[in-house]
């Protein structure tokens, strides 16, 4: 099996999503609050997995713009859940060492006294291993 | 036990029931047998103790044809059989007054004997009122003690629970006896190689003497006339013992009760050769649970049985080879 195919299968496994169920209706993209910030749009996620181009997905800005707000997950009529795919892609990044979106040095300047723990914890979960 | 007898007398006397179906003391301390009691006086022979393993549900088929109600004592596991018989229209609920009797696990005399206890004169600790921790056995060689759990029937170690699925009233506390997993033995066999499996069953089944005890006791084997006794499936006269049904007896029987067997364990209990016949039934139950969703025959009286049901997405038969 090619490395690309393996990656695509891995992402399906981590996310539990079957991209073939997608009927390309675009309801995910219509629901996404971060749509305008994304380079690869939610409805396109499945195509990248089907075409075994996980690399582009992993390197996309979208990875760090998704809020995991589940609007797309809730509304998807085909039970595809693009939000889970992007979560899985993010996992693939943070599971690789040194591949983090947030470095310890930049944290102090981001902090503000009122910032709740919850924010840091959840950001860490998403950004870092 | 007296509590139960008193209640039975009451119900007989006030005319609620015409007879009582229970167990009567046998000639030995460990062999009570199912019996009908028609009068209050006859109840003096009534017993209910750890050796009353017999499932009385099946007797209700005949009792349903009699005038008046029959008081029947059912242990929690027996009630599944009764429900299943209701589902199959074999017993009449209206003809039964069900006393759900508590159960602390039923005893297997073979297990006691296998612990070297011989020459039994009396057994203490098997009464329903006892703690069910230990049996004190008077033998001609003196007193022996056996842990209650070590003398229990296999089925009680994988007990389905203390709940009576159907009853008019309940008497006696039950005790949780489950300390094993129901399908462990089946899983163990499944893991064997084909040759080992075959050797295992060949060894067990070669003991069979075709006495029909399993069939006669089985509440699911309630056919008016068993296929093995009719000529519906055989073109030739079946004089010789090597007939087809003869050879395939146990597998055909297991298939016939598949989806209907409540796993009451009576077949194994009564087998004079000690063949673990429940291993066939349990295999079907395990497959049904795994392939078609959990199903307990006798849990209710109206659900669709797995073999009279289907879904579009059911597994293909080839799954058998794929599961390994």
């Amino acid at each position, binding site marked *: 099996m090619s490395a690309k195919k393996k990656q695509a299968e891995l992402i399906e496994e981590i996310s539990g999503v079957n991209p073939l169920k997608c009927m390309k209706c675009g309801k995910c993209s219509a629901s996404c609050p971060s749509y305008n910030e994304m380079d690869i749009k939610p409805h396109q996620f499945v195509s990248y997995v089907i075409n075994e181009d996980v690399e582009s997905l992993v390197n996309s800005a979208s990875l760090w713009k998704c809020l*995991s707000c589940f609007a797309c997950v809730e509304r998807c009529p085909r039970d595809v859940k693009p939000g889970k795919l992007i979560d899985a892609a993010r996992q693939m990044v943070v599971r690789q060492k040194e591949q983090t979106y947030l470095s310890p040095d930049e944290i102090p300047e981001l902090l503000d006294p*009122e910032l709740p723990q919850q924010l*840091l914890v959840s950001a860490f979960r998403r950004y870092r291993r | 036990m007296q509590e139960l007898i008193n209640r039975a007398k009451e119900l007989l006397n006030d005319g609620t029931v015409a007879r009582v179906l229970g167990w009567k003391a046998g000639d030995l301390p460990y062999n009570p047998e199912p019996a009908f009691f028609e009068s209050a006086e006859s109840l003096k022979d009534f017993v209910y103790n750890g050796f009353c393993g017999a499932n009385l549900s099946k007797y209700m088929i005949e009792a349903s044809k009699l005038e008046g109600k029959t008081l029947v004592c059912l242990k929690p596991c027996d009630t599944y059989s009764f429900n299943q018989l209701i589902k199959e229209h074999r017993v009449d609920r209206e003809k039964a007054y069900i006393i759900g009797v508590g159960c602390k696990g039923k005893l297997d005399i073979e297990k006691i004997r296998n612990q070297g206890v011989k020459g039994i004169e009396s057994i203490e600790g098997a009464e329903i009122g006892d703690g069910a921790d230990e049996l004190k056995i008077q033998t001609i060689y003196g007193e022996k003690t056996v842990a209650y759990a070590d003398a229990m029937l296999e089925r009680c170690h994988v007990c389905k629970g203390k709940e009576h699925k159907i009853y008019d009233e309940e008497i006696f506390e039950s005790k949780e006896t489950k300390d094993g997993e129901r399908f462990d033995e089946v899983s163990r066999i499944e893991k064997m190689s084909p040759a080992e499996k075959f050797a295992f069953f060949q060894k067990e089944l070669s003991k069979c003497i075709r006495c029909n005890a399993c069939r006669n006791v089985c509440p699911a084997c309630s056919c008016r006339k068993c296929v093995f006794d009719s000529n519906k499936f055989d073109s030739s006269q079946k004089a010789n013992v090597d007939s087809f049904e003869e050879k395939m007896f146990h597998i055909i029987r297991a298939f016939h009760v598949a989806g209907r067997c409540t796993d009451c364990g009576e077949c194994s209990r009564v087998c004079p050769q000690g063949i673990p016949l429940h291993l066939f039934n349990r295999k079907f139950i395990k497959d049904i649970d795994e392939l078609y969703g959990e199903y307990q025959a006798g849990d209710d009286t109206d659900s669709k049985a797995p073999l009279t049901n289907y879904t579009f997405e059911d597994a293909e038969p080839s799954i058998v080879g794929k599961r390994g």
Partner: protein
Amino acid sequence: MKYSYYPGCTLRTKAKDLDDYARASAKALGFELEEIEDWQCCGGVYPLGTDEIATKLSCVRALNAAKEKEQELVTVCSACHHVMKRVNDDMKNVEDICTRANNYMELDEPYKGETNVLHFLEVLRDKVGFDELKKKVVNPLTGKKIGAYYGCLLLRPGKVLNFDNPENPKIMEDFIRAIGAEPVIYPYRNECCGGYISLKEKEMAENMCDKITESAEGFGADMLITACPLCMYNLNKSSRREIPVVYFTEILAEALGVKEVQA
């Protein structure tokens, strides 16, 4: 009535109000929140990969602690509630996760999702009852027009959280009515505030929060209530509007007349 209580880390620090008012209100309403011993942080987000086990264990511990006490588990923080319910759902329905988690846990009896997880609002709705709550209100917030802000974590995924209709929830509105105020229904009440994104992408969060507050004000809300410390932070910090945002427990305590007592 006694419930196991999982406060979560934010409630220990920045969102102390949320916690204190909840406890005080519970007392006033006649139920007790018994804090679980040695709880650990839930992680703030539900573990993103379906194959992750270790990150779910802190929740399983808390859930099992409640099970051992034969109590239901109550959370107040939206995020803890979200993570807890989803992990519990996994333990109940995903055999693989359940087995693997139990392998780590080495419990006497494996945990299989037996505990019922409740958000504080669900306790008010399903256990106390809003009618009952109404009777206990001493300072009705009459005349106040309050917008409920749900955010994402309380509602979605709807099938797992089973909290309320994720597209048109009403539990907080019913709550607002119960304490004598008037709920303001506005369409952005279940849209995301930006969540953790405000750490690095301030502007994104600002845009989102502005939409929410603008919509709420447009429909006439004087104030917003929330159950989530992160939403609270974002709405206060990122929105360029001035509408006050408070925890729902605070106005609950106020209505029940226990706000000052505890503070």
